[in-house]
């Protein structure tokens, strides 16, 4: 079974600068890490591989520095890794990002299963996974907390409002996983040494089936960020400090009739 895991490099803090003019995230100069939710997708892939055989390939769209998270994935046990890096891919929204990844996935091989984390910690949209499935014309299940290989596909268990639903999807298919699916392993020193020389493949738009640059990056994005602004605070508020705060709060809670 061949599995592709979509991963992303995200800022390790939430203090991120945004270009006021274009509304695009300034990624340079900020410490980065692998999106924590992707670790669960990678762990799921590695466990399925241990059970079923096959390969685990990871890929990310980002600047060349994103190699760091591919290395991290190697240290956890991924077999092969790609960075899809091209200036023309920059500034992509959900449609352009998912399109890029669907093109990239097709240009690297044939996969039975594509796994994604449930969302990223910088965009928080949770939309790219299902959108990739749509571009590839394959079924998907999102927010999956249990995944087992059965017959020609997988059984995926997802919690919806008031129901827990388990569906069977034939390969190829895409699954985004919840963080309770498995506990991610730590990168091992042994694997780190073994994979230190392992190459990370860097692909550009020229390696994709569709090379029309209008379909990628900012120009392939139907949404535009018009304006970036600090959240407005129109609440009338009181500031308290000092040792009598507990007493004052108690009185106020009484006045508000919570006590």
């Amino acid at each position, binding site marked *: 079974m061949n599995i592709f895991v979509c991963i992303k490099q995200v800022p390790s803090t939430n203090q991120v600068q*945004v270009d006021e003019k274009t509304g695009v995230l300034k990624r340079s100069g900020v410490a980065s890490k692998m999106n924590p939710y992707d670790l669960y997708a990678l762990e799921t892939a590695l466990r399925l591989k241990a059970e079923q055989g096959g390969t685990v390939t990871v890929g990310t769209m980002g600047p060349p520095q994103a190699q760091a998270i591919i290395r991290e994935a190697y240290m956890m046990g991924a077999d092969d890794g790609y960075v899809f890096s091209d200036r023309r891919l920059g500034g992509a929204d959900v449609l352009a990002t998912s399109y890029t990844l669907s093109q990239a996935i097709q240009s690297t091989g044939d996969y039975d299963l594509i796994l994604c984390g449930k969302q990223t910690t910088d965009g928080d949209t949770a939309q790219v996974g*299902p959108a990739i499935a749509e571009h590839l014309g394959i*079924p998907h299940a999102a927010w999956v907390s249990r995944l087992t290989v059965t017959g020609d596909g997988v059984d995926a268990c997802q919690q919806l409002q008031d*129901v827990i639903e388990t569906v069977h999807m034939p390969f190829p298919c895409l699954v985004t996983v919840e963080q*309770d699916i498995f506990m991610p392993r730590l990168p091992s020193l042994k694997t780190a040494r073994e994979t230190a020389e392992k190459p990370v493949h860097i692909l550009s738009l020229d390696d994709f089936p569709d090379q029309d640059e209008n379909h990628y990056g900012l120009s392939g994005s139907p949404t535009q960020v018009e304006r*970036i602004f600090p959240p407005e605070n129109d609440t009338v*508020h009181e500031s308290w400090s000092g040792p009598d705060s507990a007493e004052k709060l108690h009185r106020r809670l009484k006045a*508000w009739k919570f006590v």
Partner: protein
Amino acid sequence: MAKIVLLERKCTGCGQCRSACPFGAIDWKDGKPELNAACKVCGLCVKNCPEKALMRLETRADSVDKSQWKGILVFAEVTAGRLHPVALELIGKALELAKVCGDPVLAVLVGSGVGAWADELRHYGVSRVFVYDDPALGWFRADAFAACVEDCIRAARPGVVLVGATSLGRSLAPRLSTRFHTGLTADCTKLEMRENSDLVQIRPAFGGNIMAQIITTYTRPQFATVRYKVMNPPLRREEASGEVTVRPVPKGVAESPVTCVSVVPVPPARTISDAEILVVGGRGLRKESDLDLIRELAEALGGDWATTRPLVEKGWATNDRQIGLSGRTVRPRLIITCGVSGAIQFTSCMNASEHIVSINTDPDAPIHRVAHIAITGDLYEILPALIRRLRGEEHA
């Protein structure tokens, strides 16, 4: 516009595409097909390629005629026979937006036995309810549900589609927006309509203390998801209005390769979103057992407790306790945050609460700016004292 491209890696040079092409549009070069100008993008070569080496690529239309896309369509989610309350909130918002552009508000129901809800929706000012009711829709498959809503969008041509940011909605909406090659904005906290029918979508962004205002100018429909408890539901009217249109189920439903293994109803759990009073612990807590302070205060007030993302990442609490963009949105009557700094992902999911009290040692913590009462102080001093008072152990 669309075009056909060849994935050279997959092509075996079998020539079936060339035989299938009715326009003689496929030349042969170095043992591989090459499409010439006669190509009408009919897609027969794609269909006949045994290796799936040919692909049809849709290219984006430059700009749509916006006047052809009118109306605001609300996806009204029904699971386990229950209409999700976010559907009514979206209808409430849609009615406000519709006042600006004069467009009708539409709703679509997809599921098994959902027809009964159509009559209920007619009490909320909806002009038309589209119904896709079939036993095959009795459980959620994103591809099958997308086929129904796609059919509805093609029939009604709405300029805006609003979907609740529930597990189901967030799985469905990206498939639809991608299918229509258009924009989708997740978790909007504010929506405004412009007279030219552009929807102004505002959401917290980039993981920083920043809001982004997003528009989808060139394509239609404009998709947005909104979380539960962000918008206000409209009042139910005594008299019903609007029409119900029952549509045949599109063939995409039967074509779905996804099958159902099991559907287990879970009793509607009380979540932090349902609490009237919430006490929240943040990174200011030094160790896991200190959450007891948060729980004790919650109990003394007759409320529930919640946390921020860092605590969930540390494994101190489960995700269902988390307030924030990757957790839940809450709107209680009283919320007391303790040791919470107040990143936008957190505050945007609780700032509609009626009374907000923040306790943080840092006078500059962003949480103090959204709080009605901002207490600069140590939760380890204030909480025990407050709990004692609430329990009547100490008199004011």
